[in-house]
């Protein structure tokens, strides 16, 4: 067995749950919810990689010296990743709206059938 931290465990579980939704579900919005959960999981994973036990946030005021702060880079990366995630989501939802207008369904199998 492997021993990993509870944060890693939570993050990897979120990724797998999201991936499951994308793989198995038929509803477009459900797939997008899955993708969104997956992104949250990845962000949590990145932040956990940067965490150092017993240290505080990398804001160097009020007695926090450079030796007592956690790694700032993953946090900067996750800030970027969150914004990219919401951008993708917004785009995907507008495509889903077009799909519904054209096919009057959100089920991908029915879409294929309608198109023939």
């Amino acid at each position, binding site marked *: 067995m492997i021993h990993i931290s509870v944060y890693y465990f939570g993050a990897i579980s979120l*990724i797998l749950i*999201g*991936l499951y939704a*994308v793989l198995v579900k038929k509803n*477009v919005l459900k*797939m997008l919810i899955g*993708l969104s959960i*997956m*992104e949250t999981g*990845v962000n949590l*994973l*990145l932040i956990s*990689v940067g965490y150092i036990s017993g240290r505080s946030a990398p804001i160097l005021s009020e007695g926090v010296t450079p030796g007592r702060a956690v790694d700032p*880079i*993953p946090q900067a*990366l996750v800030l*970027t*990743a969150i914004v*990219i995630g919401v*951008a*993708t989501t917004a*785009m*995907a939802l507008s*495509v*889903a709206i*077009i*799909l519904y207008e*054209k*096919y009057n369904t959100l089920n991908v199998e029915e*879409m294929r059938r309608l*198109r023939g």
Partner: protein
Amino acid sequence: MNGQYAALIIALPLISAFFIPVIKAASKKAVMPFLLLVTLLQVVVAGWLFKEVYTSGKPIIVMAGKWQPPIGIDLYIGHFAALFLLIIAVISFFTAYFSMKSIKVEPVDKYAMLFLLLMLGATGMIATGDIFNLFVFMEITAITAYALTAYNKTGEAAEASMKYMILGGIGSSFFLIGIALIYGATGTLNMAQLAQLAGNINPTVAQVGLALLVFGLAVEAELFPLNAWAPDAYQAAPHPVTVMFSAFVVKAGLYAMARILYLMQDVGSWHSVLRLLVIMATLTVVVAEFSALRQNDVKRMIAYSSISQVGMIAFAIALGTQSGIDAGVFHMVNHAVVKALLFIGVGYVGMKLGGTTLEDFEGLGRKMPLTAFAITVGSLSAVGIPLFNIFWSKIRILLAGVAAGYAWGVALILGASVVEAVYYIRLIHRMWFGGSGERVSESLVLGAIMLFLVAVILVIGFYPNYIWGIAQKAGADIFDVGRYISNVPLLEVGA
């Protein structure tokens, strides 16, 4: 001029894209000419960079914010990047003109912005020297590609875009997990420093991380299990966008994949990742060629053909030898030219005749002789007839494959090429010997663009050595990681 001005290659399309809403507020008619102007300026900047890099033989390192590489983000414009920035700019210029003629669906100003940003994304992916920055540019490329795929707002387009988004979303999440692993193991994101530290990474971490990165990029690079979006998107996207997808968006993904693979070559399990990639690439070629045979829509058929050629490039890259990389880069150049020509031709037919099924191409030789001629040359070249450009790169890829000990892959690719010949010759036959029709007037400028591309194909076909020399330099830029590291002025950080 100072090398730092190379940052203009990113800044120019960006600032122009932000400027478009202002132009639109003034006059909506001015948007498309402005797009043309910006792409022309981009050609000038890229041409200057190409000249600088190839005359001095030294890469240009752009350091954003005066931070030395591992601290800040650097752009690495080496031989490969300089060559491809020029190709991207030139093809964007042609497609900008084509867009001006063919994009009728509103809102055109938004189309122009997305067009510029797609060009920016591919440019950035090729130029960047930082692995997370690569992710950001990959997302820029991908999100613009999603939007442009669905731009026509038909059901097919929306479905293709959704397919692309779901695969792209999975791919980018996996890429980020890979970044998390690699960053956790090395503590840096700069590519040169990663290459230095690659040997010390725990082998399990490195293997999983590298596999995840390659998996994430395989969506952009259209490798087999992850390229289901590509034919749909190519077919449903507006015609100029298809040209861009095939000519350089895929190339950016392939380049990023090659770059990351070769940077990490000190990793213990490197060869197993390469072998996996060879299998994926060979499958891509075979599956795509056989699917192309079944198609009735010419645009979709050429899309499959493009995917199979991309698979061939990935095969060459995954060989892990200098000659393989060189041949792969040469093929990238040729493929960009040929597929740009074919998609411009097919798109122009679709625009004039209202469809791109095989029936529409019946008697095209009488209806639009110039376009038909261009498509014929492109098809012959794509098949790999001697004295056309693709012949030279294809034969080099196959020789490199045999030399690297992948004879089975070479045999499969040769078999698939026969299939390719069958459907292209069917297309040529339909165009010249079937049906009849009235003459349709053809645009002179578009005709000139197509003839220019035809001329490039023939010139490379007759005198391959000049471009081959350039491709060898560009290939060495990817393959020679030691020189890559020594070219980047790394700051010593930490112990």
